[in-house]
């Protein structure tokens, strides 16, 4: 029993943190921002604990496997959680002076689901953690349900509802697909498929792939992305745009590369289609966007396309590069959204034109945004360059030269819309000349992202080594 406890110690700690936050707020009536700081501190101590608690092992019946692979993801989720919580504190205190604990607790529950996901080797555990990750997000997306001008429809509930309906539809597909797969094989173990597949098998598998693709926001399951990003509170979107995507990557890798490794003929074409569609649609549709959140939404869709390209490579190298990519994406996109959040709090809008003159009003925020955008565009000296280069190399080595060419060509489009954001911050005279004041926790969060993006850009080796270690623990046979 104690071995099992140790195996799930980190995940339980996050779940317990959620309960602590809720209970303390209910009984002790903590002042507003204390809850936020407490959440960040609890997550921080779990992150520290990942370096001391040996969570390696296998649960009975092989339903859960923990090692370097799960550790990589757990640290990533915790880091994203801390940064997003810090980014939320000031905004939340202003928006919702009371019942803040609910916001943080929902985030912590979602994190618990994510933490369990990469280790799951059984359909039941995988699905439960996937839904545990997803359900709190629906509520969080609709958090600011009364915000916005009085005479216009509110965007908050719309954002939540869209996420919810598409999410539920996707879950239905996953479950239906699973019913086919499990019904045919009679086992809930991920790798229980027989060597030769029936038509029902492969149909079920593809439905599962489609259903899980929803959280990744891969085309054609991306429709919720821009609308939800536009309507949900931005500090939460910063979290939504990175952590569940990493969770989706974990689920995809576990299902396809581990569970269905010998049936790659079924899923590889599907994944290639998703990858190309996401790269192309994401980059092309980002071009005309005038709202920064929608633009970053489509950009995120495109970035996921690159990740899927690396997964499609179906090699330990590819997985390592996908991990590296998603980890850098977490810091870059979180940072970008938080800067946009800080700027919009002052200027009152998310249109590109509202960013005008940002670098004159607040040179630091302007420079930070430029760095994040350059990283998303894949320019050297920031980490996004390595991420793109690695993914392309891994894919090319796996013989996907055609897909790589498509990826590089649409990446050139990316240059234009990322730089057009940078241009509006740098060039035009803004409507306001007020400097943007980012509060202390928000500043900490942005600075951490900035240091990570530039630091890893100059010296990417530690993260590459970690990703490679995690990937080779995950795919030892290659």
């Amino acid at each position, binding site marked *: 029993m104690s071995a099992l406890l140790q195996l799930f110690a980190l995940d339980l700690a996050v779940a317990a943190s959620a309960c602590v936050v809720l209970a303390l707020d209910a009984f002790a009536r903590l002042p507003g921002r204390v809850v936020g700081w407490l959440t960040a501190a609890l997550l921080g101590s779990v992150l520290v604990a990942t370096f001391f608690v040996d969570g390696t092992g296998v649960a009975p019946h092989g339903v859960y496997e923990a090692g370097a692979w799960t550790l990589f993801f757990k640290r990533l989720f915790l880091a994203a959680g801390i940064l997003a919580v810090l980014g939320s504190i000031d905004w939340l205190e202003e928006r919702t002076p009371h019942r803040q604990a609910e916001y943080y607790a929902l985030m912590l529950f979602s994190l618990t689901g994510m933490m369990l996901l990469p280790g799951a080797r059984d359909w039941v555990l995988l699905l439960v953690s996937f839904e545990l990750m997803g359900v709190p997000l629906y509520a969080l997306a609709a958090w600011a349900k009364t915000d916005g001008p009085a005479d216009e429809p509110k965007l908050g509930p*719309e954002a939540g509802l869209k996420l919810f309906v598409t999410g539920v539809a996707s879950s239905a597909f996953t479950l239906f697909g699973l019913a086919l797969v499990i019904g045919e094989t009679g086992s809930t173990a991920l790798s229980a498929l027989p060597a030769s597949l029936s038509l029902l098998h492969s149909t079920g598998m593809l439905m599962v792939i489609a259903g899980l693709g929803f959280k990744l926001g891969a085309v054609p399951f991306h429709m919720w992305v821009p609308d939800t990003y536009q309507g949900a509170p931005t500090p939460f979107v910063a979290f939504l745009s990175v952590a569940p995507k990493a969770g989706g990557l974990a689920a995809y890798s576990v299902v396809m590369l581990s569970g269905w490794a010998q049936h790659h003929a079924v899923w590889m074409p599907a994944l290639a289609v998703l990858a190309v569609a996401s790269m192309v649609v994401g980059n092309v549709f980002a071009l005309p966007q005038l709202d920064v959140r929608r633009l970053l939404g489509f950009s995120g869709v495109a970035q996921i396309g690159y990740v899927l390209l690396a997964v499609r490579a179906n090699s330990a190298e590819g997985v390592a590069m996908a991990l590296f990519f998603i980890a850098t994406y977490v810091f870059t996109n979180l940072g970008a959204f938080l800067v946009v959040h800080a700027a919009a709090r002052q200027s009152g809008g998310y249109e590109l034109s509202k960013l005008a003159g940002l670098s004159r009003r607040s040179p630091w925020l302007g420079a930070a945004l430029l760095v994040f955008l350059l990283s998303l565009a894949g*320019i050297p000296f920031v980490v996004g360059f390595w991420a793109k280069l690695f993914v392309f190399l891994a894919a090319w080595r796996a013989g996907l030269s055609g897909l790589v060419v498509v990826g590089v060509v649409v990446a050139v489009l990316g240059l234009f819309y990322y730089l057009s954001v940078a241009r509006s911050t740098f060039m035009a005279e803004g409507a306001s000349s007020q400097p943007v004041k980012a509060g202390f926790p928000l500043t900490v969060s942005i600075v951490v992202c900035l240091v990570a993006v530039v630091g890893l850009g100059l010296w990417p080796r530690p993260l590459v080594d970690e990703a490679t270690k995690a990937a080779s623990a995950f795919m030892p046979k290659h």
Partner: protein
Amino acid sequence: MSPVTLALVATLAPAVAAVLLLVVSPLRHRGAPAAWLTLAATVTSLGAAIALLVARLGGAPDARATTSWIEQAGRPLAEVGVLIDGVSLVMLLIVCLVALCVQLFSVAYMHDEPPKAFGRYFALHALFLFSMNVVVVSPNLLQLFFGWELVGLSSYLLIGFYFARPSAAQAAVKAFWMTKLADMGFLFGLLVLFVSTGSFEWTSAPSAAVATWVTGLLFVAVVGKSAQFPLHVWLPDAMEGPTPVSALLHAATMVAAGVFLVVRADPLFALAPGTREVMLWVGSVTAVFAAGLALVQRDLKKVLAFSTCSQLGYMVAALGAGQAFAGFFHLGTHAFFKALLFLAAGSVIHAVHSNAIDDMGGLRKKLPLTTGAFVIGALSLAGVPGFAGFFSKDLVLSSLEGKASWVPWAMLLFAAFLTAFYMGRVVIKVFWGEPGARAEHAHEGNLAMTGPLVVLAVPSLASGVLGGWLATQTSAEYHLHLGLTPVLATVMSLAGLGAAVVVFGRGGKAPLTAVLERLDTFSLVDRAWAGGYRLGLLGVSALAGWVDRYLIDGLMNFAGWAALEGGTSARRLQTGLVRDYALMVVVGVLALVLIGVLR
């Protein structure tokens, strides 16, 4: 100290200054300390470079040290480090010396800026010098690309230094977009190189086809960085930056990085005759085209900018002819005399507070030292025998003899005539003739301004004699020979100067001025890019926007209308919109299943 340590010092000293200035904001905000710190770093770099030179003259061999940047499966995937050989040492000396002169000049030139802007200016200079040195000492193409992008970033920030001026911000963005677009070629080239050779070294390629692909893609980046036709349009606009910045980045060093890259990757280019053929023509066309446009500019700095395009065309043509040494030699002399010309122009602009040639005139009495410096630079650029520019230009022209049935050779000879002609025009209009409206109160700057002019005048005069030494350092062959080409080149440059005296001495206009001016103001290449941008990119963008807004919104409106007609007072979010989205999920799943199953 070992050569490797010295090279590291030369590279990292400006990085230390840049980071200090970035992090310790009081240093930057107070202005003067930033200048001192950056100057100290540059002096350190120059000192280290000189120490390297002394060691090399004492017989020290090439030095190379790398450490693994990223490892994969226990072996380095990419390396970072320093390589000191003849080429990088000479380049390092040039960069550090010119940078020091320019920074010293800037202390006086930027004196009237508010302390914060003054500090920011020097912080950016430190960043630039670090980035440029990363390019210079890099032992492989990947690290070179890193430095390449960093100099691009510092260039962007320095062009946009006066960002309150819309034209400056616009120019910065244009330069960034143009060069970034070209840099995609670099990225592609690196990918192809690594996939086919397993490394980022420039030493070899498995086949001629691979070499042609890699060099062709790299050359796209060179065209962008070194402002070659048809990507040259950003360089004249980049003159919106402060004049010393133009001297350092957009004349002497950064724009020459493209040429430096080709010199470095010469073993690859040697395997790709097709790429060289293209380079030969691109360089020759740029040399003539830009020289023609330089003839009709009314802005002193733009004359020099087009002249830089034209001279870079010379270098690229020489590289295309397979004579990397000729291109490199011209890079070196050009760095000195063009930096000198820009700084002298800066001194003039500082004195008359205007860039327009028409506001100047008759300045030789008010600014004797500046006049001397500018004339030395102009004669060197024009290729008058004895000046540095003569030797390197002669070598470039000689290397083209007989290539492509002598056509590029003839084009560059003609460009040599044009060069002398437009420089003659500028010298006469600015320093001789009637004093212009703003010339009255002009006076020389202080020692910080005149000192660098004197220092740069020396190599502009004399660095031509170093050709033989340079050749031994870079293990190339070099002989000064008296043949048809040097004689013709001399005739061309003297004829150009003579024609300038005849035409402009009496206040006349160059022949074809109207045509060239029309060409310049119409700016065909600019329009072609703008048109391509509008048609291509904005077209795609508009289409995507239409689908995103009209098609999807249309569905939504239709659904909303249907719902209202149905008698409910449903709000937007209760309409079919989310149903449409769910429908999309269904369609997507079905498509995926069909693709997978029917495959």
